């Protein structure tokens, strides 16, 4: 009897998600979940997107027919926003949240673009959470995911929901790769979540899980993840 006949094989994205959850849980992050069909408030406006932001355009976002206020979430920052809002209401700050979930973008597909993919998103909010903490937590994350010898860098960027905003790069197999967006939560976002930006601050981050899997295991095409094809389930967690 071969091993396969005893235990089934896990999808590579689930395998990677488990590893990511563990990395963040070890630092005290709480796992958060939320709806895939989301209100435009949580998807955009709570996050300080202006009403006329290009990301709201039809080509990026799946808006729902006959329901003007609903979208398929374009990022799991929605979950992060809901979680910190609830934590504030429950008086549970400082707090840190991590969520991994399916997100949707209305764009033509190719080897690096897919209409659905997984995003890993999180935030840490408290009185004294700094950019130095952001750097430490995310450097730790990529080292755990891609190996201790990975170098991680932070470069200037822009997102409506963070200020300052930074792009996270990792050097893997000799190449610098763009991994995720991050930054210190914009005071408008904290305010929209019912928190007082003069009392609390924090960082947030978000990026593709599929991308980490593709880099880590040399998977050439993002669309392979969603074909229902078991030939993809050939990876094991080295930890």
């Amino acid at each position, binding site marked *: 009897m071969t091993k396969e006949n005893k235990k089934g094989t896990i999808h590579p994205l689930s395998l990677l998600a488990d590893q990511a*959850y563990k990395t963040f*849980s070890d630092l005290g992050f709480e796992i958060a979940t939320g709806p895939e069909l989301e209100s435009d408030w949580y998807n955009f406006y709570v996050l300080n997107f202006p009403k006329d932001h290009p990301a709201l355009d039809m*080509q990026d976002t799946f808006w729902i027919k006959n329901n003007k206020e609903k979208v398929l979430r374009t990022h799991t920052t929605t979950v992060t926003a809901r979680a910190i809002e609830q934590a504030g209401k429950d008086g549970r700050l400082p707090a840190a949240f991590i969520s991994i979930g399916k997100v949707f973008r209305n764009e033509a597909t190719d080897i690096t673009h897919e209409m659905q993919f997984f995003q890993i998103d999180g935030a840490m909010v408290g009185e004294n959470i700094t950019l130095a*903490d952001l750097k430490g937590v995310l450097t730790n994350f990529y080292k755990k995911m891609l190996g201790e010898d990975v170098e991680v860098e*932070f470069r200037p960027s822009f997102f409506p929901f963070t200020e300052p905003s930074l792009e996270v790069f990792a050097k893997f197999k000799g190449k610098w790769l763009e991994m995720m967006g991050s930054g210190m939560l914009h005071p408008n976002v904290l305010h929209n979540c019912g928190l007082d930006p003069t009392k609390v601050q924090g960082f947030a981050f978000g990026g593709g899980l599929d991308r980490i899997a593709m880099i880590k295991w040399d998977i050439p095409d993002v669309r392979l993840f969603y074909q229902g094809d*078991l030939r993809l*389930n050939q990876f094991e967690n080295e930890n």
Partner: protein
Amino acid sequence: MKISYNWLRWYIPEVSKADKLTDVITYHIAEVETVEHRVLNTEEDWIFDIKILPNRAHDLLSHQGMARELASLLNIKFIDPTPKYKIPKSYPTKLVKRIETPKCRRYMGRIVRNIKIGPSPKWVVQHLESIGQRSINNIVDATNIVMFDCGQPAHVFDLSKVKDLKLQVRDAKHGEKMTLLGGGEKVLKKGMMVIADDYDHVLDIAGVKGGRHAELTEDTKDIILECANFDPVSIRKTAQALNIVTDAKKRFENDLSPELASYGMQELSALIYEMCPEAEFEDVVDVYPKKQEERKLSFSTEKISKILGLKVSVSEVKDILKRYHLEFTEDKGIFEIKVPAMRQDLAIEEDMAEEIGRILGYDKVKSTIPKIDFKPKVNETHVKISSARSKLLDKGYSEVMTYTFSDSGEVEVEMSASDKKFLRTNLTDGLKDSLKLNQINSPLLGMKEVKIFEIGTIFTNKGEEMRVAYNEGSKIIEKTI
């Protein structure tokens, strides 16, 4: 935005070598997508393609903007070109400009007579070609140089086509038509903005694209120069509705400072004088109903240090503010700056944290892992999903993922890049297809029997629901988690 190294050097001759400059831009300003090394005759140049960030698009989509930023960042000399922008005597004008819409924030015009349309000087052609632009004629090239140099879009009309020397910026009438420069007719709608004469000739879709009616010809002798400023949201919506992308539109939609218009007019006039020394300039007509307000911004080194997790000193901040020519006062670590017209991105204390962080370099911030005793709660949904997955894996089932989009369903998306416009109402259909595929491959997978499952969300009129589905032989079992 394509930036030529040689063009930058006009303003910052002491700038670092091209390869070093790539790193400076990457770590302190924005991502450099490509650097192209070019040799024209014997002259070397490097063309940086820089992904200017949206919050700096109002000042960095230009060579002077980049040169000013780099001069401050590297603490090197910036050669201000304005003292060289000279024109001879200017004459009284009869040009009338009217703003009939609040979406136009400033409208500057100037009549120039006795110009001669012809080829551009060599340096103009070189500058334009270096950044992938084509030289058209001296006057059109002058407007393009101004836009890529200082960031202010400019436009020129043939004066003989403008009746009574009267121009107005107004809302478009519903159904009004205009033929674009380069051809193609556009039908305009309410909410769009045009530049027209008083006889219903539309000359220009404001801030987006010029029209054919007042296009320059080889015989054009007298022209009207235009440097204006428009509401960014209006420009973006108009361009989107008409499906027009121009370099002017890209700049206007990023909220240019109305103060830039006068600077653009000065540069454009000087360039035209250089190209046509016989030209006669009339006075500038400047309609500027509401001057851009002067803003102040206050921040403390304490707050900046607390955001960055890096101790920032008063003297470090002073040094940065001086290099960036920001007027300031300081008292016990509390700064107040006068926000320059071109730096409207500096609005709150956090913006200064970003400014100081990126100028110092984010590598200066030392990574830390916070030691906080968080009290994480267990997430029930996650526990249910994990335990369903573990159980099935233990029973020999393998996990697959299929598409959320489907040919039919109860929840439909508005528009889609694909033909599948519905969200799945079950996992069973996707799993059936997956089962067939894997059964064909089962000898390859070394499996006697294919056992698969999927965990995912389904969508019905009642809302969304997390489900698990697996097969028993060819039968699919689907349950709510």
